[in-house]
């Protein structure tokens, strides 16, 4: 569903991605991990064209992301994205956050959009918060709303950019629970995260990045049990030592 081929990206002369290639098949859950600055967030943002790249090719559901002819808005409407800092629209109530793009981008009627929004709020356990503003919710609740907002667009794939990194520890699980459920329902997911428990539980494959390169791209069992590169071994040793 997503094919990334030889993608390189530069900020001026600084190379943030070097020759990255991988594949995400329908229904797969891919976890992307690596030290900060390794380019993992940049890679995932290239997939929906939020970050441009200079070399290589990314094809999503047979649409080429880098092609200037591609209608990126149309493509993005079909890809859900969840951000580290939630990025709910603070001037809109929770329900308005859920319906605005359904109405303005997909052209749904307000009734249909609200119906869908309510069902999704129910699913993430936040039906009672529909009329609140994002600022009145906890971080975990905001992130669950953000997931619901992305799901409201009926995405073919969900991209998560460190969805739990900005959360207090006791709120991480309520977000991960929603993501696990989503994965078990067969949603195609690409998840940048340090949550190795999540990776062990639901990932099909783990991609490990360092210095803008994809260093490992393995089935999760192989990644956790027999990582090939020294860099990944060190990373795992550090992150799993406690």
């Amino acid at each position, binding site marked *: 569903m997503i094919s990334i081929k030889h993608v390189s990206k530069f900020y001026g002369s600084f190379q943030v991605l070097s020759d990255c290639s991988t594949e995400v098949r329908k229904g797969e859950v891919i976890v992307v991990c690596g030290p900060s600055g390794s380019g993992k967030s940049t890679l995932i943002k290239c997939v*929906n064209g939020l970050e441009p790249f200079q070399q290589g090719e990314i094809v999503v559901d047979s649409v080429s992301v880098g092609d200037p002819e591609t209608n*990126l808005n149309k493509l*993005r409407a079909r890809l859900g994205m969840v*951000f580290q800092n939630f990025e709910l629209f603070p001037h809109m109530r929770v329900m308005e956050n859920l319906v605005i793009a359904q109405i303005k981008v997909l052209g749904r009627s307000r009734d249909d959009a609200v119906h869908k929004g309510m069902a999704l709020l129910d699913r993430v356990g936040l039906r009672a918060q529909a009329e609140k503003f994002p600022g009145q919710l906890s971080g975990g609740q905001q992130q669950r709303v953000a997931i619901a*907002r992305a799901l409201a667009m009926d995405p073919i794939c969900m991209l998560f950019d460190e969805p739990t990194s900005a959360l207090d520890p006791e709120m991480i699980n309520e977000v991960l629970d929603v993501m696990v459920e989503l994965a078990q329902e067969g949603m195609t997911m690409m998840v940048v995260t340090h949550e190795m428990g999540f990776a062990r539980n639901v990932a099909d494959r783990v991609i490990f990045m360092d210095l803008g390169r994809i260093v490992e791209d393995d089935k999760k069992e192989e990644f956790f049990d027999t990582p090939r590169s020294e860099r990944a071994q060190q990373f795992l040793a550090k992150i799993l030592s406690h």
Partner: protein
Amino acid sequence: MSDFDWSSIPGALPYLWIGMKTTLQITAVAVVAGIVWGTLLAMLRLSTLPALSWFAVSYVNLFRSVPLVMVLLWFFLLVPQLLQAAFGLSATTDVRLVSAMVGFSLFESAYYSEIIRAGIQSVSSGQVAAAYALGMTYRQTMRLVILPQAFRNMVPLLLTQGIILFQDTSLVYVIALPDFFGAAYNVGNRDGRLTELLLFAGAVYFAICYSASMLVRRFQKRIS
């Protein structure tokens, strides 16, 4: 103090009120037009196309580098010719009010655009990314997500600029347009009571501007 004679004021109130209406009209038009045109300028300025942003930068620099009085005179001299050319109006039509409105709007928009640009930049880039990620176009992102948040942050500054503008409208005396200040001046001149009338006009300006800025301050506290 005992020499002051305020007796000419009560009878002149209807005339002064007409002047005040002119002042308020110019202020209202310049605030609205200035914010609309200023918003466009701010968006041009932030555009990635060099030509557009160059135009906005030049516009703002031009209007911020010339005295307002001069701008008013320019437009007083220019607008009749423009109207004549565009609508075939005779050059003797009274264009003082229209030219003042045009002059103030274009001048204020330069100031408004800087306030609005700062407001747009105060909204985090993550909000743009979130709107784009939902498939919104640039226009939808601006209209639905960025500008509403920017304006909320900017309201106190925009209102304060409006208060300054309200005072600056008194400069229309250079084109002999009787606004509130001009009306007070005329009455004072007629009755030989210029000092009293100008003191009175000053007190009215002070009362209006001071209470308005108090309201802005209260509003600012409420939203922060």
